């Protein structure tokens, strides 16, 4: 052990109560940082998982068409006109989904594509009527671009797959219409009435989906909505979901259709989560700042109390750098213990918070607190604490190093 560390350790034990205060602040700062980040990012990640599991990473819909404008080639009286592009307009739906699917499969990041037909209908149950949205899907394709398989809360997909007259209803829709598995209901669209049975009930946790979205097998949906060809949109799954924005831009250029990534579709909520995350970082950074101030205070006190020790060390050949390091080592030792204990505290509290019951429905479905165990929260907490505490420790350590031994011994040290 170097003499500087040895001295630092002994100086630390000389100011136990102050050091314990600094240590407690660091432990709390690091622990709270981890817990708040774990909970904030836990909800955010779960929201993203729900979004991806419901509407997929990328949605392709509406054909893009350049709109042209004629202008006179040689002034107002000119008989000649030229066509110039003055913008783009979108034509609803996808005429040839098969062609787009073939092109999409050439994108290296695309893992699956599902064709979806969408239209409005009126549902009539024995209890009440309501307006809903019908989604026609090829079940196996759709299971590859969504979490529909794991979102089933009642009934079975096998029933839906094998029987064309079966429908998948959202939890809220089924509750509102008082429909149960096997119950019969009527759908009315474009003046046609079709009778179906409830095959299964799903729950995404997204209120806007679970209340209005009803899935039918594609052929049934085509028949009901009178759309024998085409699709409303393609739902695309990606291997790397985080590349969705870049891929969406690329797809739009190549396919000449409007393409929306999940980040674009959910930008409002994502901004809310980002603001929440920044807000909690600021709040917990204040705790770490308090820890840094406590450390500053403790070290400043030790420097004042140890001026004679500093003088004697300097007279023995200890350099200014040695003196500075002795004080920085004290900060580093407390910091290391504080960070380790803070990480353990953060981990423990995160686990405890995870057990807390908290029923939430609306943007996702959960019955307890959602947390995210990420090494980066621990790294972030430790880096924040290290930066703040070491900066706070620099001042007293530099002051200690600047002390002149002659002045101290003469009793005139400032």
């Amino acid at each position: 052990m170097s003499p500087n560390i040895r001295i630092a350790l002994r100086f630390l034990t000389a100011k136990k109560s102050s050091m314990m205060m600094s240590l407690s602040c660091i432990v709390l700062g690091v622990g709270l940082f981890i817990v708040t980040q774990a909970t904030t990012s836990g909800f955010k990640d779960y929201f993203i998982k729900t979004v991806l599991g419901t509407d997929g990473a990328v949605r392709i819909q509406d054909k893009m068409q350049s709109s042209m404008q004629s202008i006179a080639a040689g002034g107002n009286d000119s008989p000649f006109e030229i066509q110039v592009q003055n913008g783009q307009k979108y034509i609803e739906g996808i005429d040839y989904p098969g062609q787009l699917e073939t092109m999409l499969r050439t994108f290296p990041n695309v893992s699956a594509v599902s064709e979806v037909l969408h239209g409005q209908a009126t549902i009539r149950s024995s209890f009440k009527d309501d307006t809903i949205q019908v989604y026609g899907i090829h079940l196996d394709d759709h299971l590859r671009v969504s979490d529909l398989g794991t979102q089933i809360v009642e009934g079975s997909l096998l029933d839906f797959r094998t029987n064309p007259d079966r429908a998948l209803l959202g939890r809220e829709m089924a509750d509102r219409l008082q429909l149960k598995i096997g119950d019969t209901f009527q759908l009315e669209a474009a003046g046609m009435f079709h009778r179906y049975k409830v095959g299964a009930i799903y729950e995404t946790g997204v209120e806007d989906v679970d209340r209005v979205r009803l899935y039918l097998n594609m052929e049934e949906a085509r028949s009901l909505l009178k759309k024998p060809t085409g699709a409303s949109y393609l739902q695309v799954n990606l291997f790397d979901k985080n590349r969705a924005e870049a891929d969406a831009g690329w797809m739009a250029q190549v396919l000449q259709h409007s393409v929306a990534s999940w980040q674009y579709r959910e930008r409002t909520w994502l901004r809310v989560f980002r603001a929440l995350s920044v807000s909690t970082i600021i709040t917990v950074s204040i705790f770490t700042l308090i820890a840094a101030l406590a450390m500053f205070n403790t070290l400043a006190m030790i420097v004042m109390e140890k001026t004679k020790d500093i003088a004697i060390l300097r007279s023995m050949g200890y350099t200014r750098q040695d003196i500075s390091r002795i004080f920085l080592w004290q900060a580093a030792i407390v910091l290391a213990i504080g960070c380790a204990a803070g990480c353990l505290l953060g981990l423990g509290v995160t686990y405890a918070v995870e057990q807390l019951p908290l029923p939430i429905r609306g943007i996702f479905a959960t019955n307890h607190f959602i947390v995210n165990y990420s090494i980066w929260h621990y790294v972030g907490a430790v880096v924040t604490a290290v930066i703040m505490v070491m900066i706070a420790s620099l001042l007293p350590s530099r002051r200690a190093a600047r002390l002149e031994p002659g002045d101290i011994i003469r009793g005139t040290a400032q």
Partner: protein
Amino acid sequence: MKAGGPDDVALRCADLHRSLGQGASRVHVLKGVSFEARRGQVYAIVGPSGCGKSTLLYLLGLLDLPDRGEIWIDGRLMSNSQDAERTAARGEHIGFVFQFHFLMMEFTALENVMMPMRKLGRLSADAMAERARQLLDAVGLGEKTHRFGTQLSGGEQQRVAIARALANQPSIILADEPTGNLDVKNSAIVFDLLTRLAKENGQAVVLVTHNPEIAQRCDFRKPMRDGVFV
């Protein structure tokens, strides 16, 4: 740079000037002091309070910088050297004993004596501990090596300070009123120890004292008044 003097001159200064204080209260404390100390000799600097004895001692110990003049330590001119060089010279060539002991209270007597050796880093940990024990034995504290500073009397603390000053076998021992805070009996013990060990090791001892008996027993007395030797 060599001083040009005989090899047994451990410390030499010439025409040292030093003023202390700021602005109107600035006082010219040392007014051209010249002095040399030889190995194996004990020098007492005596004089009234405020005459510049301690200021001279701190300059000779490279704890302070002179305004003018030169200081040679073991033949090397040190008065104009950088802080790092002066710090290294203190660790290697100079041992200090102060009036108020200045032991580090969080450390045992043994650890206090080992402190300068640890910085110099010439010996192994075992060799350092062995030498520290020998030195504490020599000052009569062989049984109290593991006592903390707070568990030692004033006289014992000063003896530990002497052992610590001798730890790196410096060529110069500078002592600022080493017996000033001790009773008569302990003063005699501390002075005897300091001079005996220094003479055995061939070290030059320069001590500042108000005690006429102590001064009388030194090899040389250097009376000072108003910043000059008289």
